[in-house]
């Protein structure tokens, strides 16, 4: 079957671009998703039910998941809606992160060509054809740099793109990435007027990375957040402790000026 003509393709491409979210909106929504994950939200559609309803609904969802899984075998779709219960019944599925990464790589290599800044499609999709699985993988430089990140997120090229899934990560690099993610989110929360949220994230950083590479950043941000929530005396006390502990810190000058006494 022939695909849409050139005029239709161009018009639909413009429509698709116009309906894409601006980078700031996408970043803010990602922040919101991460916050929800941190708070343990797992199935928002279930969360609206009262507690008892959630428990019984959870059983129903698990049962439905088994039914849908059977249906998926019959070729209804690409979904296999597992659940903890069905997974346990199946002998404990061990999720394979590497297999999922391969799936993402495959989907990205088959996706229409996009420029690095926006999800624009210069060539236009050809729905009549089956995309070739031999499409060369995009290089990391093609990765759209839209995942939210603070100034300290990337240490290499300065691009905001997170690490490509094909690149092997060492433990220390993983830890630093995690630190940068937490500190970046805390900074955005604080500058977005959510100082309480920033303090929660900074506490999490302190628990997970007590002596991490970004402990000075953590402490400086914490002092700023304490001041923002009205805990001036505590902020000033911690600023004084910061100056004694990290006298040559890059944050020292700024910390000393935070939260002046009124």
């Amino acid at each position: 079957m022939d695909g849409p003509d050139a005029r239709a393709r161009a018009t639909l491409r413009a429509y698709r671009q116009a309906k894409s979210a601006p980078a700031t909106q996408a970043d803010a929504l990602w922040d919101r998703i991460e916050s929800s994950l941190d708070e343990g939200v797992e199935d928002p559609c279930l969360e609206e039910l009262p507690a008892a309803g959630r428990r019984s609904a959870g059983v129903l969802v698990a049962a439905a998941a088994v039914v849908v899984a059977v249906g998926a075998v019959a070729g209804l779709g690409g979904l296999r809606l597992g659940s903890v219960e069905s997974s346990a019944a199946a002998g404990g599925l061990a999720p394979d992160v590497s297999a999922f990464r391969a799936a993402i790589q495959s989907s990205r290599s088959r996706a229409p060509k996009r420029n690095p800044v926006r999800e624009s499609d210069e060539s236009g999709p050809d729905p009549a054809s089956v995309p070739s699985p031999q499409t060369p993988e995009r290089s990391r430089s093609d990765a759209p740099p839209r995942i939210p990140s603070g100034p300290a997120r990337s240490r290499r090229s300065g691009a905001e793109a997170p690490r490509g899934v094909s690149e092997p990560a060492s433990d220390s690099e993983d830890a630093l990435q995690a630190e940068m993610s937490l500190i970046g989110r805390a900074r955005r929360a604080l500058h977005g007027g959510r100082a309480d949220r920033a303090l929660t994230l900074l506490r999490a950083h302190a628990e997970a990375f007590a002596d991490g590479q970004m402990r000075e950043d953590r402490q400086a941000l914490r002092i700023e957040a304490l001041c923002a929530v009205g805990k001036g005396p505590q902020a000033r006390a911690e600023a004084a402790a910061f100056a004694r502990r990290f006298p040559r810190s890059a944050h020292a000058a700024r910390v000393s000026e935070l939260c002046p006494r009124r």
Partner: protein
Amino acid sequence: MVAATDRRGPTRSPPGSGSDPWRRELAEVYRSHADFVRRSAGHLGTPRHAIDDVVHDVFIIAHRRLPDFDQARGSVRAWLFGITKRVALHHRRSAARHQRRLRVVTPPRDPPHPDEALARQRVVQHIEAFLDQLPPAKRTVFALADIEGMPAVEVARSLGINVNTVYARLRSARQAFAQCLDALNARTPEEVDDGRS
């Protein structure tokens, strides 16, 4: 490898501690497919004000189901579309209950736009009007195939229909869309603006 129960065990890891191996994968999926999910939510009839909520909920659910994703059964996009269908339905039902309790407020008129943005807005409005008048079954097929670029086989699998049915609906929708484009090109900007008031 991490066992499924480790990730969902009773001892919750500190938020963003890096011990969740799926958080980074979710970030990759979000970066690659968030706009697809957003547009799909719109094509499935989600009110504009709820689209961000739908996208949020889809990725929360996706994070939980990442360990169970099976590439052999379909693409990541098809998988996400399946989740989006469920979430969009949930939101439509919630919105319907909510609307019954609310007075509908007329939205304010958009402020004037520069010419280029206005032209783009014309295209968007025209296509949205076209999509709105399509029957839902044809609209979904047309959106997935011609707007999102999904192959017909993948569309068929995502919707649980025969690929010949996809082709039939697509053929009909494309004919209608060609007429829509003829109408769009025939109308002057003034006629379009009058149509908006």
